[in-house]
């Protein structure tokens, strides 16, 4: 059980950049165990004035560092399995949620050079609208652009026969006349606005 706790590699998650998940041993958070040990040591520090106890603290720190190093080793193995032998494009797709990268790449092949695009993606999480500019460059994201990229957007429907895109934004319905330029699947496609 403890081995699973310590050796479980954490799957790379963007929010870990701000706060890493705590380490657990036998289901108990390591933080609490360390504070218990420190409580005892600090009492000894204060009452016995034994500065040598710092050695114990450094040994404890060293052991914790070994645990983290072991965890890193397991992560290397796990990431090697996930990412090893893949092309750069495949890796970009794996590290971008829901095949979003593949869709953007598909869309780019159908867009004229440097043409701005309107993006209809799920509003939550912000991830999709924030990551798109990185992969879509040099295409700018603009709300009134002639080209529309639709990717799993909620409350968005395209009627191919009538050439109408219907956007329901919390009851505020907007209709845009457009025709299909390219389609990856039913929820992922590229449109071009009709001029008249």
């Amino acid at each position, binding site marked *: 059980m403890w081995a699973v706790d310590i050796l479980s590699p954490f799957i790379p998650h963007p929010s870990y950049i701000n706060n890493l998940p705590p380490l657990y041993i036998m289901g108990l958070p390591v933080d609490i165990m360390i504070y218990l040990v420190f409580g005892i040591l600090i009492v000894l520090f204060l009452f016995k004035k034994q500065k040598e106890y710092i050695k114990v603290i450094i040994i*404890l720190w*060293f052991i914790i*560092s070994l645990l983290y190093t072991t965890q890193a080793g397991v992560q290397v193995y796990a990431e090697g399995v996930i990412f090893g032998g893949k092309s*750069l494009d495949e890796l970009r797709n794996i*590290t971008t949620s829901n095949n979003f990268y593949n869709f953007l790449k598909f869309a780019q092949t159908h867009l004229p050079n440097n043409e701005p695009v309107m993006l209809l993606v799920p509003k939550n999480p912000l*991830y999709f609208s924030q990551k798109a500019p990185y992969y879509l460059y040099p295409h*700018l994201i603009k709300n009134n652009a002639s080209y529309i990229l639709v990717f799993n957007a909620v409350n968005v429907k395209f009627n191919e026969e009538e050439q109408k895109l219907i956007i329901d934004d919390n009851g505020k319905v907007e209709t845009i006349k457009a025709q299909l330029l390219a389609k990856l699947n039913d929820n992922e496609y590229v449109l071009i606005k009709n001029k008249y």
Partner: protein
Amino acid sequence: MPIVILYIWSIFLPFLLGFALLSVFSMGKRLFTFSQKIFLSFFVGASIFSMSLFLLSIFHLKWDRVWISILFSFISAICFIYYIKKINKNLNLTIPKINRAHLRINLVNYLLVALIIFKLFSIFFIALDKPVLNFDAWTNWSLRAKVFYFEKGIPLNRNDPYFLGGGGHINYPLQIPILESWIYTSTGVWDDKFVKIISPLLLLFFLIFFYLFIYQFIGSTKALIFSFIFISIPLISYHAAADYADLPVGLYIGIATMLFYLYLTRTDNRYLMLSSLMFGFAGWIKNEGSFLFAIVILVLMAIFVRQKGFKNIKKLLNLRSIILALVPGLIFLLPWLIFKSKLGLGMSNLGTESNLIGGIGIHFEIVPNILKNLLSLSNFSLLWIVAIISYLFYQKEIKESKLGIFITLVFCCFLGYIFIYLFTDNYVMILNDTIVQRNLLTIAPSIFWVTAFIIGNYLRNKGTK
């Protein structure tokens, strides 16, 4: 040309420039050992190289690997010729011998070196096995790098939608995106996997410089133990693989404070000037660098004016030394600061305007979050606890080794952050837990070496190997 050579060249050129400039700078009385100079070179070269490319962009020169390579190789060559002529009249081109005194050869040290190598390997592997993954990495740094690469320079027209590379936080400094873009330009490939090598490389060079700096005071085994502990600090190794700018800022400031310590112990003004430059370089990576630079100068001025305490360094802290601590870094940063003020880009993370006035008020609601962040061990392991214990219980060692001023400096830097959190709109980033640990990362390397120094020194005096 084989692409591997181009990849190597993209890293080697800034290194070469840094080594050449450092060689000229450290002429005369010996400033660094050969190894120290090697591991400091990339820090110096990366900053000066990227600032030069920024300045050249003002003249609308299109970036191209040929002329950039020729220009910086030429500058490096001139520096080397000058160095050889001035210093080494009996030209001796043998490679300097590695000083084996750096490392006492025994089984424990071998094991420690093996652990360090393994940990470094894991950091490099985790960084380089996948493309840019984290949020700020692509919104801030890598989008800009991509834009600079495809535009063959920095878009400096305010009306350009990709002004300064676009993305979020347009007022962030440009060292990281320029370096990444140079790697793309040099190789001719938009490879957002390899560019992540910058942070692990900086960490590697910092680690060896840290070891070379500290082993002479505390012995090689203890220096190796602390080196291993340092790279095993979870948030440090995570950031090293994540292509963010907070860790590079922390590493530059860590080097700056070590150089400042060398100034206090060896009284050579060049250490002080280089320390100042390192603070300036940190300001060219992220706004936090300039902020910490300003705090350090203010604290030094306050100590100089009050002239109380710090008896053992009083003679070294005069007006001249404060000017030397300020001017080189400020001169380096000046073009960027002028550029920013001309375009009204501001310093705040939350927008182009300063939010100091807009968010005025005391935001005590952040206190529980700050405490929670400080008490969590999952990011910095035992660093804060050990640091506090060493500062409280080892006063004698601190006085003997002139480290009191560093504790004052890092504590004031921490207070500076707290001030920003308490009194400005930045408090929102405390409430959503997005900034405390990353800001602490900018001072963590400095706190670590001071702590390692105090404890290592104490153990050495006690006769522990």
